[in-house]
């Protein structure tokens, strides 16, 4: 990680770093050869941060930015680019799209917002070469990708017989060959059931053919994940996403973490990361009674310390939904009648894509907007609650600054509520109007930097300004001692960082991208003794023709991830 040479001094800013419990102290941040260091020489390049806020680079725990379904989204939504593809100005290249931006725009926009690491949240294993090619094509930001396991035929076969060790061996093999980061679970069992035109809406539902339940899949994968001691925990998109009255299913799956202990050498404390919780925190029994249950869900999360969550905030934009939850996308298409794409991925997973307009004048959309924000505002531990929009499902990632504005300013939330045609109804069905909490910059830094880095097991590399860490440092034009009374200024400050240093290189000044940076692909290499049964099962699936490709064509070749940052895990069991 040290091919970047040179010294930088970020001088005199208000430093906010929850990983060191630093809240607004005026200090200098020294950078040398890509790392944060104690001090630098007089020859260091100086960035004047006086009167500005200095934070570690942002870490996005969950975002759909690369891979086949993102690309299908790009292909089948040319209108997403219409009038939004301006002329390129050197050194940047042409940027396109809004909800499904081009790879270049993705890298640039994250960098403009001061983000240094992004986790691609769903990698279909057989398509991992494509995912890695796209990651490589995305400039500046470091990225990892989570392969999906929740509907994988091998996983279901092993877990039906309770074989945790075989499941772990399969996960270890798959992470190595796909250069994956961790274990993603999407609608466990439900996407497999979708191949029979069915779904799993509760965790005790039955998966056809495989004779297993979502409950068994989640618990089994959690056990296998801790058996391996991976940096990240199981990362779950739960069953019954998006439907009225789904919060009991959410609580039931969260409860599966009770009594499970985190076992790893990466400083991770949780055993389950529950993603885009907003989509799973609804009450009511129809769209007419659809309401927020953010309080009920967050009360549980606050008590249960071995769970982390991210929000999945609805940003009230026209966007593109895309998920490995195939049945959900079909359901959504039936609701909004817009175009629908569906993909079945052999033996592994599926995906669906549908455009969606979150309209603030439609009551359920208003309720969704409020639910996402309520989750953050009820959260007692910002180190376990992370800001996301499940990009692009609830809104594009470029709206993070807007979400931050809403969380930091009651005035801005009330302005949105007041602009809704049916504000009274939304107020009745949610709690947002009664909450006066306004998050602090320290809490925002925990939710966007220190927290997600720790949750991913990357706390010793990212999300912190401690010497030795990768030098991802963002400077925002906000005066810690004198925050603007106009909430719009919070949004604009986070939208365009005053400066962003990525891996020790100045890549953004005044919101303008200066360089394509030196991006890395982060992946996890579990070293485990060979498991003959799993080896035989995997080989057979290729030789017997269950897969359409040969086993030698399956792995991600080195040249597709030419700048790897590999995290080795010695499996001790």
């Amino acid at each position: 990680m040290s091919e970047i040479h040179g010294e930088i001094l970020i001088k005199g800013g208000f430093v906010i770093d929850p990983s060191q419990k630093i809240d607004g102290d005026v200090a200098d941040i020294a950078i040398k050869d890509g790392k944060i260091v104690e001090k630098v020489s007089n020859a260091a390049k100086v960035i004047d941060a006086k009167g500005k806020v200095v934070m570690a680079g942002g870490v996005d725990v969950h975002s759909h930015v690369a891979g086949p379904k993102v690309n299908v989204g790009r292909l089948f939504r040319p209108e997403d680019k219409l009038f939004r593809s301006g002329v390129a100005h050197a050194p940047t290249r042409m940027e396109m799209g809004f909800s499904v931006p081009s790879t270049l725009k993705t890298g640039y926009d994250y960098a403009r917002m001061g983000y240094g690491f992004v986790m691609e949240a769903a990698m279909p294993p057989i398509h991992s070469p494509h995912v890695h090619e796209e990651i490589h094509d995305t400039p500046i930001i470091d990225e990892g990708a989570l392969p999906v396991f929740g509907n994988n035929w091998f996983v279901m076969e092993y877990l039906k017989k309770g074989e945790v060790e075989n499941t772990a061996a399969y996960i270890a093999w798959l992470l190595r060959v796909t250069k994956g980061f961790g274990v993603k679970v999407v609608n466990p069992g439900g996407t497999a059931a979708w191949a029979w035109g069915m779904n799993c809406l509760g965790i005790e539902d039955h998966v056809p053919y495989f004779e297993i339940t979502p409950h068994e899949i989640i618990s089994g994968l959690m056990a296998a994940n801790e058996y391996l001691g991976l940096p990240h925990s199981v990362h779950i998109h739960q069953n019954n996403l998006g439907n009225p009255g789904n919060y009991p299913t959410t609580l039931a799956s969260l409860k599966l973490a009770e009594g499970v202990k985190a076992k790893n050498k990466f400083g991770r404390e949780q055993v389950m990361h529950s993603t885009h919780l907003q989509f799973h925190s609804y009450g009511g029994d129809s769209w007419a009674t659809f309401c927020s249950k953010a309080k009920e869900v967050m009360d549980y999360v606050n008590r249960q310390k071995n769970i982390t969550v991210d929000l999945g905030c609805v940003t009230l934009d026209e966007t593109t939904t895309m998920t490995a939850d195939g049945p959900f996308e079909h359901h959504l298409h039936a609701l909004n009648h817009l175009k629908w794409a569906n993909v079945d991925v052999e033996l592994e997973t599926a995906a669906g894509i549908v455009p969606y307009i979150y309209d603030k004048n439609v009551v359920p959309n208003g309720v969704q907007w409020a639910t996402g924000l309520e989750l953050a505002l009820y959260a007692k531990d910002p180190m376990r609650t992370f800001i996301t929009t499940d990009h692009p499902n609830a809104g594009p990632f470029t709206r993070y600054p807007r979400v931050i504005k809403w969380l930091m300013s009651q005035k801005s939330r009330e302005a949105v509520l007041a602009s809704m045609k049916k504000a009274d109804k939304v107020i009745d069905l949610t709690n947002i109007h009664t909450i006066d909490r306004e998050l602090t910059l320290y809490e925002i830094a925990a939710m966007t930097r220190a927290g997600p880095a720790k949750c991913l097991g990357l706390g010793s590399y990212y999300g912190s300004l401690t010497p030795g860490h990768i030098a991802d440092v963002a400077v925002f034009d906000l005066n810690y001692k004198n925050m603007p009374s106009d909430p719009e200024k919070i949004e604009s400050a986070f939208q365009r960082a005053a400066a962003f240093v990525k891996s020790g290189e100045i890549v953004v000044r005044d919101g303008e991208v200066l360089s394509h940076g030196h991006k890395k692909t982060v992946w996890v290499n579990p070293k485990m003794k060979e498991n003959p049964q799993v080896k035989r099962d995997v080989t057979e699936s290729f030789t017997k023709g269950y897969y359409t490709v040969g086993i030698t064509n399956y792995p991600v070749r080195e040249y597709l991830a030419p700048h790897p940052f590999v995290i080795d895990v010695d499996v001790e069991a």
Partner: protein
Amino acid sequence: MATVTLTPIKTPELMLEANSITPDACAGKTAEQIARLECREGKTHVTIGEFFTVSGNAGATAAETDIVIAGDCSRVKYIGSKMTAGTVTVNGNADMYVGGWMKGGKIHVTGNVDSFCGIAMEGGEILVDGKAGNHVGCAYRGDWRGMRGGTIRIRGSAGNDIGTFMLGGTIIIEKDAFIHVSTHAEGGTVIIKGNVEGRVGGQMVKGTIYVFGDIRFMMPGFKKVDRVELDVDGTKAAFDHYIGDLGERHPRSKGKEVFADLYVKAA
């Protein structure tokens, strides 16, 4: 009213993307200022003055501005696109996207227009004395929000994909059309005075189509329900009334399913 006259002096090597040939872009400007308005030719920035001599100043507002192009614009795209008021007259042919995303005012092309004439139009009038290419009054590709309002009248024939995803407004093709008329439409009216090859009203939810000539291949999703006397664009005649597309979803109103209507002039 003030008239700005543009006289072509050079044929663009690539296509000229002349988004600024609109009353809105010209309003309040002198002839000299208009000549300096930016256009694109491929990836290069060019000005109107490099391709036209400009005479006459514009009016104070778009509504007070008439633009006359005295010559052929076969390689000039986006004439009158996004305009809200005023008029544009092209004495000759025009390339693609004439009046695209137009909100108001009038466009008159005395020659032919290429494809995407009146794409995603919201209001105003387009009159073409010659023929039109494909995609008259259609939606932008990929978009489900097509033409919402206004009138397009093509005196000649038109190609395929007329009124795709149409939501409102009227398209009149005075001669023949090829395939795909009002595909996916949820409103609006298309009148074709000549013959149509086929695929008329495929996946159409709501809206109206009148065909004066023959439909060579009828969609299987349309069912004949009755024969009616109608006055369509000044012509009184008997029409066979079909409803459809029966394979598509349809909204309900007052307890009844609402279908798209297709009227074909009775033989």
